C-alpha cells in the first residue's frame, strides 16, 4: 500500500508539533523518520496509525482519503516504544489478541488462531515462549513479540516507534537485521521512527530527516550522505 501525507500539520494547544509536511511513501518501502526528540517524527507516525488526528492536511492510503479513518479501521500494525505488551496475558494471548477482537463474522476459529500464532512465533524465532508472560522475557524478546502481535492482524502497513530504543547495542544489531528480514518477507510498507542515524542509514530504503516539526530532507541513505540538503542535516548525520 502506498501512503501519501499531504500538508499534515498538528498543534497541541499553542505549540506546533508539525508544520505542514508532505511525504510520499511508495508501496513496500522501508522508511525511517529520523530526527532528534521534539522533531515531530513520533507525532507523524501516530497520525499515520490513527492514534492522533492532524489539525489540518490529509493522509491517503492507496490514493484514498484516510484522514478520518478510525484507528481500528486503519489496520496498521503498531509497535510501541516500550512495546506495550499486555502484562496480564501470556505471549500467546498477546499475539492472538487482535484476531480474537475481530467481529464474529471474520473471526478465525480457535484452531486457526493457534496455528497463526505459532507460525508468527516461529517467524520471530521464539517458538517456545507462548506460555510465558511479558515480565519473564528479555528486552529483545519483548520487542519481537510486539512485532509478532502487530503482524498477527495482517496489517496493511507496519509502524514502529523507536523499535530498538530500549535495547543494548548487540541485541540492537541483531534485531535490525530481523526487522529487515521480516519486511522483505512480508513486503509490508514499513515506517519506523528513530533518533539514531546509523540505524536509519543502515536499515531504510528511504530516510526522512526531521527537525522542529519540519522535514529537512527526503532521500536514499547514500544520497543524504553525499549531499545533505541543509546545515542541520549535515550536522545531524555526521554526529
Amino acid at each position, binding site marked *: 500500500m502506498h501512503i501519501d501525507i499531504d500538508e499534515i500539520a498538528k498543534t497541541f494547544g499553542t505549540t506546533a508539533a508539525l508544520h505542514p509536511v508532505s511525504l510520499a511513501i511508495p508501496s513496500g518501502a522501508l522508511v525511517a523518520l529520523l530526527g532528534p526528540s521534539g522533531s515531530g517524527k513520533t507525532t507523524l507516525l501516530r497520525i499515520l496509525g490513527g492514534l492522533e488526528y492532524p489539525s489540518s492536511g490529509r493522509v491517503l492510503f492507496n490514493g484514498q482519503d484516510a484522514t478520518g479513518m478510525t484507528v481500528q479501521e486503519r489496520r496498521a500494525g503498531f509497535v510501541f516504544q516500550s512495546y506495550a505488551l499486555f502484562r496480564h496475558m501470556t505471549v500467546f494471548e498477546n499475539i492472538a489478541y487482535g484476531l480474537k477482537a475481530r467481529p464474529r463474522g471474520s473471526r478465525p476459529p480457535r484452531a486457526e488462531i493457534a496455528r497463526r500464532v505459532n507460525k508468527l512465533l516461529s517467524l520471530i524465532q521464539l517458538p517456545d515462549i507462548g506460555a510465558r508472560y511479558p*515480565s519473564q*522475557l528479555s528486552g529483545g524478546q519483548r520487542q519481537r513479540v510486539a512485532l509478532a502481535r502487530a503482524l498477527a492482524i495482517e496489517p496493511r502497513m507496519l509502524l514502529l516507534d523507536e523499535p530498538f530504543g530500549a535495547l543494548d547495542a548487540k541485541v540492537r544489531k541483531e534485531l535490525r537485521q530481523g526487522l529487515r528480514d521480516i519486511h522483505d518477507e512480508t513486503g509490508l510498507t514499513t515506517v519506523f521512527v528513530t533518533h539514531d542515524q546509523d540505524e536509519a542509514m543502515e536499515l531504510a530504503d528511504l530516510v526522512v530527516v526531521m527537525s522542529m516539526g519540519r522535514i529537512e530532507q527526503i532521500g536514499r541513505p547514500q544520497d543524504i550522505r553525499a549531499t545533505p540538503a541543509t546545515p542541520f542535516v549535515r550536522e545531524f548525520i555526521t554526529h
Partner: protein
Amino acid sequence: MSDTTLPVSARPSHFRAATDETPTARRVMIGLAVGGLLLLVFAPLIAVFAEALARGWGAAIASLGNRDSLAAIRLTLTIAAISVPLNAAFGIAAAWFITKFDFRGKAFLITLIDLPFSVSPVVAGLCIVLMFGANSAIGGWLVANGYPIVFALPGIVLATMFVTFPFVARELIPVMIEQGRAEEEAALTLGASGWRTFWTVTVPNIKWALLYGVLLCNARAMGEFGAVAVVSGKIRGQTATMPITIEMLYNEYLSVAAFSLAAVLTLLALLTLLFKTLLERHVAGQIAANHRH
C-alpha cells in the same frame, strides 16, 4: 537485598551503619510504637468485646436478637451493598477520565474528588438536608410524590456515598498514571473497540487496586456516623444504622446491647481488614513475580 548484608555477629561491633540508631534510641522508639498501639488500638478493641460479653454469651446474643438491632444490621448491610458498587463504578469512571485524557480543569476535578476527605461529615449531611429536605424545592416535590430522600434510605445512601467517594478513585489514579495509555492504544491498533479495550486491558490491570479501594470504601461505609446521623433522623428500626443504634443504646444505659452491636460492627471491620491483608499478600506475590527476570 539481604545477600550483601553481613550477619550481625560478623560485623565489627564498633562500626555502625549511618542509618543504624543507638540501642537506646531503638528501644525508646519501639517502646513508644508498641505502647501506643496497645493503649490506643488493642485495649479498646478488647474492651468492646469484654463489655459485650460482660453478662455472658447468652445475654450478648439475646440483646442482638431484638427487632431494632436486627433492623440496624440489615440497614447497614443494605447501605453498603448499594453505595459501595455505585462508588466503585463512579471511582473507575473518574480515575479513567482523569488518567487517560488531557483536558482543562483536571487539577480542579482531582481536588473535587478529595473534597469529602476534608469536609466534616456533619457538614456533608447538612448539605444533603438543605438540598433534598422537605423545605427545599427538589425535596418538597419528591416528598409530595412519595419519594422522601431525607429521613429515609436514599438520604442515608447519598450521605454514605459522599463520605466514601474518594476511596476507589484515589486508589486507582496513581496505578493508572503509572501504567500509562500505551497498552490501551495497542489494543485499539489491534482492532479492539473502546469497550473491549476497557474490559480486556484496563480492568485486568487495575483489578487489585480496585478491590483494595472497594474494601476501604466498604469499611468506611459501614462505620459512617456523622453524615448519616444528620440525614437519617435516627428513627429506631427504620433509619438507624448500626453506628447510630449503638449510640442510642449506649445513651440509654443498655450497655450489653450497645457493646454487642459494637462488637458485630467491629467484627465486620476486622473481616474487611483480613481480606485487605490477604489481598496485600497476594499482590506482593504478584509484584515479586513481575520483577523476576
